[in-house]
């Protein structure tokens, strides 16, 4: 019995990472109604930037958050202004194709620069330290921290969207672009802000992912699939739904692994497909778009 409880607990902690990873994807979809296919690659790119910083400047990878997060936000802002805004003019398919192209570009550039070897960000004892609950259940300290940050980040984003003026304008733009523009909302700035926030959050997810496990230039595609599944399970454009989706996916994978160690990922995909078939709008239907 304790084995199953442990699988669920570990799944919830893993789900926190998926939620962290997915909330930016959910936000971008909520505001702009397109899926950023380079989302996973931006996470991996952030991990490589941190890797290079630590290689050259030394110290623990934790300090790189202070550089990678604002840099990612800036990249997101500029990316939206210079590329995605132009793509959006061409209809719904154009940004998909553009982000797909970006994904290929980032993967190939990383492969050119770093080769195909596995890398990881080592955070000392934090990588393996854990709290013992009982003889069967141990909670990894890093995993618990990641889970806590995921909940904190999503709650902060939720607060930003519901209480702040820019957040309200973002929800208004997601709801009705024409009316937002006619109300004096600068739609371009809203979109750029949303992408900046999305890339900042994906950087957080990417760095923690790199601390928990290894990464390669092409692991962004896999990460995108998990992020996408978490978003779909929870309900597109719904941040709390994304957290729930991440938790369900994480638990499905760890319980699946408990049944058969080779089938964890498969179990996650099967749960995703089952939810897609029976509740395509997600578990929490997007009654409150973006928020």
């Amino acid at each position, binding site marked *: 019995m304790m084995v199953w409880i442990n699988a669920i607990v570990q799944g919830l902690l893993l789900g926190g990472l998926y939620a962290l990873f997915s909330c930016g994807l959910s936000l971008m979809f909520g505001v702009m109604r397109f899926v950023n296919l380079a989302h996973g690659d931006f996470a991996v790119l952030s991990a490589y930037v941190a890797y290079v910083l630590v290689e050259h400047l030394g110290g623990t990878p934790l300090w790189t958050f202070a550089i990678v997060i604002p840099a990612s936000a800036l990249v997101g802002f500029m990316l939206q202004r210079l590329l995605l805004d132009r793509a959006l003019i061409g209809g719904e398919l154009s940004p998909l194709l553009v982000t797909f192209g970006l994904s290929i570009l980032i993967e190939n550039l990383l492969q050119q620069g770093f080769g195909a070897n596995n890398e990881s960000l080592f955070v000392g004892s934090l990588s393996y330290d854990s709290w013992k609950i009982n003889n069967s259940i141990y909670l990894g300290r890093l995993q618990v921290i990641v889970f806590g940050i995921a909940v904190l980040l999503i709650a902060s984003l939720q607060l930003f969207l519901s209480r702040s003026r820019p957040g309200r304008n973002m929800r208004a733009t997601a709801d009705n672009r024409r009316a*937002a523009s006619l109300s004096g909302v600068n739609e371009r700035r809203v979109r750029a802000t949303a992408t900046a926030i999305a890339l900042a959050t994906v950087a957080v997810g990417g760095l923690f992912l790199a601390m928990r496990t290894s990464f390669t230039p092409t692991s962004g595609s896999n990460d995108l699939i998990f992020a996408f599944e978490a978003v779909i399970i929870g309900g597109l454009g719904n941040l709390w739904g994304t957290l729930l989706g991440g938790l369900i996916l994480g638990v499905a994978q760890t319980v699946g692994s408990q049944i058969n160690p080779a089938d964890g990922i498969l179990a996650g995909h099967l749960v995703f497909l089952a939810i897609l078939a029976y509740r395509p709008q997600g578990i929490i239907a997007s009654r*409150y778009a973006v928020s």
Partner: protein
Amino acid sequence: MTLLRLERVTAHYGHLQALDELSLSLDEGATLAVIGANGAGKSTLLSLVSGELRPSQGRVYLNDEDITKVEPYRRVNLGIALVPEGRHLFSTLTVEENLLVGAASRRQGRWNIDAVYDVFPFIKQRRNVRAALLSGGEQQAVAIGRALMSNPALLLLDEVSLGLAPVIVRDLYVALRQVTEGGTTLLLVEQDLTEALNIASHVLCLLEGRVALSGSPQDLDQTQVVNAYFGRHAAPPEANSPS
């Protein structure tokens, strides 16, 4: 003083010409009602002024400043607010949130959330209700209130009476009179001729993108208006300018 001026403005939707070298000027504090049959170019005129549509020819001026190429959200900063046909509320936001988004431009003036609730007290009770759950009349009041929150110098109204019961329309026009008494200039497109003629200081009747009739409601008789409206022996325009 002239607030809005259109100079020989022509507008197209693809190959279809919606306005043909239309000129008009509108003084501060005036209320101009634009009437005409479907397809006459009334809503196109509002789209040109709000910035949603660029003219293929001609210029648009606000306070003598050329705003022809200014984007819609910047025009709100300059003092132009549109209440679009069909309300276009933010359906997932509450009434109060809808109104607060209307203040995005941060223009200063007499309108704030309390002033809007004073004019439309019935929406105050529904302040925490999502806009999608409101009645048609309540939605229209929120749409007008949201536009007022930007403290416009020029308020554009597109078919505010559309789909509403006569008693609701009457109440809305009572509220709009309070708005005009505060000095706000109104440019309204309306199918309800009675209400339009009652509130307007000037009337402009469009027919196939051109001015078919123009003047003050007191100077125009009903037959002239009806004839111009339906294009039957349209009287020649007295002037191209309503002011």
